[in-house]
């Protein structure tokens, strides 16, 4: 029976288009017993093999959403399909298809990395003749081979986290959920874990990552969703989100920032075709020029300024970062609510 079902599934897979949906959430609401509406109508559509980022401030409902996706919570309303299986009607099939790394480091501290991985292999029914090989390659991947037989309780936080990541992947799940996997790691450990995530994603694994680090999302994710107060406010590629909120900015410092010099500099900028649409602002030191293509126009601009006998002493070009996205969006949200503390109360409930 189960075998039959699995075969049907694989036929279905070959028949359908190459881009299958790995995570399909429709209008998911999660309301806790105390009435807190942690998730209010989240819809997701993540393709197979995609690296999807889920961003949001503390208490936005990221963990509640991820717990709903991995069958730990049942949606109050709406439906979730993972790898084609419905979390409500076929939770067992979902559980066999996923790996989930919680925010807490979920390992047996009394056991060694090798033992932790062995238990995980057994839990997921990894065939015994493949176990040792997989354990060795995972230990290699997370660089814990040297300490494979030492108890995990003696490890640093970063090593424990890496071990946790390895245990999530023993059964080679097609979809992996990572809930703030790099929180509390030092920069080196974080880079190492990033490489690791990219590697499993390259192998075809769909990765769903929640994070508070925008740099991380920018680095790793193909697509992002921003969650605010239980609702997705923005979705797109990191670049789309960045360009949605702003353009490149060129800050110029002039040698002699007198009114006259500055006015002449503005005139030079205006004459350049490339910077026709730019907004120009005068500051005490010089100018701030905002335009999409300001980076490419810098060379021409400097030539023209030199020709007009205006000396530039310092300059800086900035592109909007995801931090800007985040602050702009989160900032407006806080203002709308009028109460900045609201997020804190929600956070307590979600944990």
């Amino acid at each position, binding site marked *: 029976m189960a075998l039959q079902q*699995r075969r049907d*599934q*694989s036929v279905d*897979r070959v028949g359908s288009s190459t881009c299958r949906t790995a995570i399909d959430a429709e209008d998911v609401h*999660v*309301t*806790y*017993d*105390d009435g807190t509406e942690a998730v209010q109508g989240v819809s997701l559509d993540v393709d197979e093999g995609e690296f999807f980022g889920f961003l949001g401030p503390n208490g936005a409902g990221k963990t509640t959403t991820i*717990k709903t996706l*991995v*069958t*730990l*919570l*049942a949606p*109050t309303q709406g439906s979730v399909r993972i*790898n084609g299986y419905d979390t409500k009607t076929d939770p*067992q*099939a979902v*559980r*066999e*298809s*996923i790996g*989930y790394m*919680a*925010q*807490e*480091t*979920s*390992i*047996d*501290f*009394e*056991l060694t990395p090798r*033992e932790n991985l062995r*238990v995980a292999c*057994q*839990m*997921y*029914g*990894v065939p015994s003749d*493949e176990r040792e*090989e997989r354990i060795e*390659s995972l230990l290699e991947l997370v660089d814990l081979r040297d300490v494979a037989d030492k*108890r995990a309780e003696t490890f640093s936080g970063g090593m424990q986290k890496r071990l946790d990541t390895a245990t999530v992947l023993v*059964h*080679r*799940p*097609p979809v992996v959920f990572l809930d703030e996997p790099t929180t509390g790691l030092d920069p080196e450990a974080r880079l190492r874990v990033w490489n690791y995530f990219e590697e*499993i994603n*390259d*192998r*075809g*694994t769909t990765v769903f990552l929640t994070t508070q680090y925008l740099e991380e999302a920018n680095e790793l994710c193909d697509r992002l969703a921003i969650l605010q107060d239980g609702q997705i406010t923005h979705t797109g590629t990191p670049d789309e989100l960045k360009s949605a909120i702003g353009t490149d900015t060129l800050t110029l410092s002039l040698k002699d920032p007198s009114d006259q010099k500055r006015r002449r500099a503005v005139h030079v900028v205006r004459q350049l075709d490339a910077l026709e649409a730019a907004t120009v602002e005068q500051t005490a030191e010089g100018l701030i020029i905002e335009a999409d293509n300001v980076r490419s126009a810098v060379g021409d601009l400097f030539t023209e300024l030199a020709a007009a006998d205006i000396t530039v002493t310092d300059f800086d070009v900035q592109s909007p970062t995801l931090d800007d996205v985040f602050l702009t969006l989160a900032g407006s949200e806080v203002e709308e609510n009028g109460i900045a503390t609201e997020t804190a109360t929600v956070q307590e409930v979600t944990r």
Partner: protein
Amino acid sequence: MSGATDESGIESDSATRASGNSSLTDARISFKRWLVKTSRNPYVTFTSLVQPIIFFVLMAEVLGAIAGGAISQSVSSDVSYVTYLTPAIIIQSALAAAAVSGIGLVDDMETGMFDKTLISPMHRSAMFVGKMLSEVVRITVQTGIILALGYLLLSVKSGASVDHYLQTGLFGVVGIFVVAIVFGGVFMAYSNIVALVTRDREATVMIANLLTFPLLFISSAFLPLEVLPDWIQAVAVANPITYGVDGIRALMLGRDVMSVFEITSFTGFWNTVIPAIGVLLAFNVVLGGIAVGLLKRASKADVQ
């Protein structure tokens, strides 16, 4: 990488679906995991084995010096206090092992291992059965050690024979293990209830120590109930320890020693063993039922 996955290329390096196990396999996995975890925790061995043994020797020396009169008046003059005390220490040790059962659960909840197992394909009941079995094994081993230690103490003190120490022979030994395990079940359930209600490691440890230790004294564990104050006799009726101790004591002495009520429907020590196991089973059903209910709720989480 296995040959099969290599053939089908990079894409299939992630399997489509893991295969689960049978309930029996799941229980065995969980059983082994917990056995290794507890065996590596020195605190566990200390509270449930070293502490009762120290207690055994001290009580036998101190209380034994004065308890002789009370014992011969209540049971018989040819019963040594060591023999009288052994069931109490077996129960104390089983109690210490069972009363910390909830700590493992709280730890799993705190580290996230609880959630991790919930989202694995493991059978949920098998998971808990495995954990319980590991505790049963612990109680069995500890009971065996203390039983042997009691005999050692007795033979050092009075040179008594095994027959004298354990009146019901090999059958009695099996019976003692059964009573100790059934008794352990009561406090395993109790400890898990505390763990599931508080969800806090410190609280679980504290309540385990706070309540279980005095309970030993408000029972027939150390002295015959007849010589103890009325209020202790009254509380002892509702104390599972009384039934655990009386049950084992009846098997060791080979006679009816039930101290809280009189039953004569059976013969000899059965008049104690049967009602004792019956009462303990009733405790198991009630507390176990509550624990399972709470556990089901905990695995579902509080959503509408």
